[in-house]
């Protein structure tokens, strides 16, 4: 069993979740994910890692409450124990001295882009971090990210903070600031990663995305996480989760990701609303 150190909602629907897992903390790297099971009946849920403390043996993730299983995670309290917290899984994000790197984060990806930005900064890159949210109240960890970035840029859909608009504005924002990134790394929802890849493709800005398909074992056995990259079938759990965003068949990926939506939402209808908070 793994002890829950912290679980709190940091912005509506997004939870910061810290678990005691020394063996995982010892080997985890930016871009890895872990798999968690909230109880003995629960699904195996893959979550990108957002931070860790090797000395304390803890690992932190940010997750969004979507369906029944994440609702169970969202009910955990410090001191509770969960049966599975396994990792690190997937290949880590390739960290090197690239020059100027643009890190883009949205949703839970604002959390998981943090260790990537930190490692890139340590490797001597110029790091720009761009966060996107629907509104300013959905932003978090700006202070943490500011410490590991040369500059933090913000886009909000409603203009309550930073530039008003959509993630599509990235090229415009970057050009206005006079920055041409050597590499773009995106962690966020599928739609955001797809949009960024689409706008950076004509500019030939190499774009790495951290894919988040449905998974079961997460160790290279079941094959549910497959996606088409450059016309070839790849398995996100062992070949990824990082891939070249310009090579991915996004339409296929989006539809595969949605294939269990009815079953995911169904358990919510069966339980009382109150229990989710």
């Amino acid at each position, binding site marked *: 069993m793994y002890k829950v150190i912290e679980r709190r909602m940091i912005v509506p629907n997004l939870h910061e979740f810290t678990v005691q897992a020394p*063996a*995982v903390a*010892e*080997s985890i790297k930016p871009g890895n994910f872990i798999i968690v*099971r909230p109880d003995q*009946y*629960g*699904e*195996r849920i893959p979550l990108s890692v957002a931070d860790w403390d090797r000395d304390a043996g803890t690992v932190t993730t940010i997750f969004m409450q979507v369906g*029944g*299983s994440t609702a*169970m995670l969202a009910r955990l309290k410090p001191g509770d124990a969960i*049966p*599975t*917290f*396994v*990792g*690190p*899984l997937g290949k880590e994000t390739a960290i090197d001295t690239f020059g100027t790197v643009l890190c883009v984060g949205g949703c839970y990806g604002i959390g998981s882009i943090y260790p990537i930005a930190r490692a890139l900064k340590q490797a001597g890159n110029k790091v720009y971090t761009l966060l996107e949210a629907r509104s300013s109240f959905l932003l978090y960890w700006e202070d943490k990210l500011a410490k590991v970035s040369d500059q933090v840029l913000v886009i909000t859909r409603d203009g309550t903070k930073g530039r008003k608009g959509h993630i599509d504005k990235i090229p415009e924002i970057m050009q206005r600031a006079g920055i041409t990134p050597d590499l773009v790394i995106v962690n966020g929802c599928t739609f955001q990663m797809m949009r960024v890849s689409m706008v950076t493709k004509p500019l030939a800005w190499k774009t790495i995305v951290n894919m988040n398909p449905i998974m*079961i*074992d997460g*160790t*290279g*056995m*079941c*094959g*549910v996480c*497959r*996606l*088409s990259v450059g016309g070839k*079938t790849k*398995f996100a759990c*062992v070949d990824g989760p990082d891939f070249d965003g310009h090579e991915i*068949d996004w*339409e*296929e990926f989006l*539809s*595969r990701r949605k*294939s*269990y939506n009815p*079953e*995911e939402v*169904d*358990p919510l209808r*069966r339980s009382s609303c109150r229990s989710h908070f």
Partner: protein
Amino acid sequence: MADEKPEKKKLDLSRRAMPKQNPWERIKNFDEVALGYLTRTAVEEASRCLQCKKPLCNQGCPVGIDIGGFIKCIVDGDYASAIRKIKETNALPAICGRVCPQEEQCEKTCVLAKKEAPIAIGRLERFLADWEAAEGKIEVPPMAPKTGKKVAIVGAGPAGVTVANDLIILGHDVTIFEALHECGGVLIYGIPEFRLPKAIVNREVEYVKSLGVKIYTDFVVGKTKTVDRLLEEFDAIFVGSGAGLPWFMEIPGENLNGVYSANEYLTRVNLMKGFRFPEFKTPVKRPCRVAVVGGGNVAMDSARTAVRLGADEVHLVYRRSKAELPARAEEVENAEEEGVILDILTLPVRLIGDENRWVREIECLKMELGEPDASGRRKPIPIEGSNFRVAFDAVVMAIGNSPNPLIPMTTPGLEISKKGGIVTNPETARSSRPNIWAGGDIVRGAATVISAMGDGKIAAASMHKYLMNQE
């Protein structure tokens, strides 16, 4: 009269049948299909054994069980000695009695096989294991004094558990690292409940634990810690990390929704208990018309699972003829009894989806059999222009898998085959690195439970020699 020769025992060629759940009942549940021998039937079956002076049956057993010996004990009514005899060489009798392909092994070499009535060795093995469990007194074998040597085992599947059993008895300190949240490997995630109840797998794993084997679940060797990191703490490592990525046919449409690998389909149902959704939270679809592509035991398991999940029609699509089906005859028979339709000499060439990217049809070619190929089976040849389309709303690809990539990817200096498996010396199961052994699917690709256990036996013997400096 004293000088009269004893009457020659008349051959009893009536192989005793094992009771099964009726097909019309069992398609509505996930309970075990075969019900096992009653004591009386077991003794009758055992009494048919000729007790050959030079038995051939045990030569057909990958782990070399003293088959004649344990059968003799059954005839004598001494079941405790019988099960003890099996456990001398096989730690998992309840499992092997159920899932070993005996017709290809011990029962094939049984002398009575010539009369088409080999002794039902598997059923007797199962009878004894279940008898022991029902008695509730699981005997622990004599243990050698502690050697102080530490062994790590990667994967709590049939290979790993066999190595653990053999080495702990020899006095070594044994720790198993299992990636999933439950032990058993393919016995848990792959083979369905109706063929091998999970309670039985858990029972056998508990037995090995009771011998003192330590097991860590949720520990992915290669990721949580690498093999080399473990070698800082352990004297030797056995890698039984099992199956890896599923193979697909590489035809258009395989990434449509509703197309599953057998690994995914079976893992959802068996390990994650999707058939009990929403009590268990992992969903599994319940489509109406299911096509399973392939002809092995995994294909049969997938098809029979689809039947139990309520499909109206389940087809098994196979490119050769019925005679070439690699699945056990017993499983083919069970599947047919349960209504699975065999579409033989049929090759899928394309999967066709709807506007929402869900699979709706398969386009196939008819095949005919040509000359024997490298495998000795007649080669299927497509009949040109025979294309036809059939409606399906789910397709399960059960055409095999490669060895798991995690250990090969993260262990430098390990010789890896073209197919991605760890290369071992078949006589010792040792890899190209002197303190790493391997066996089961990580070496062979998709093989059987008993061959994995056979590898485990060979590895354990070689590891013991190494650990005791007897090489």
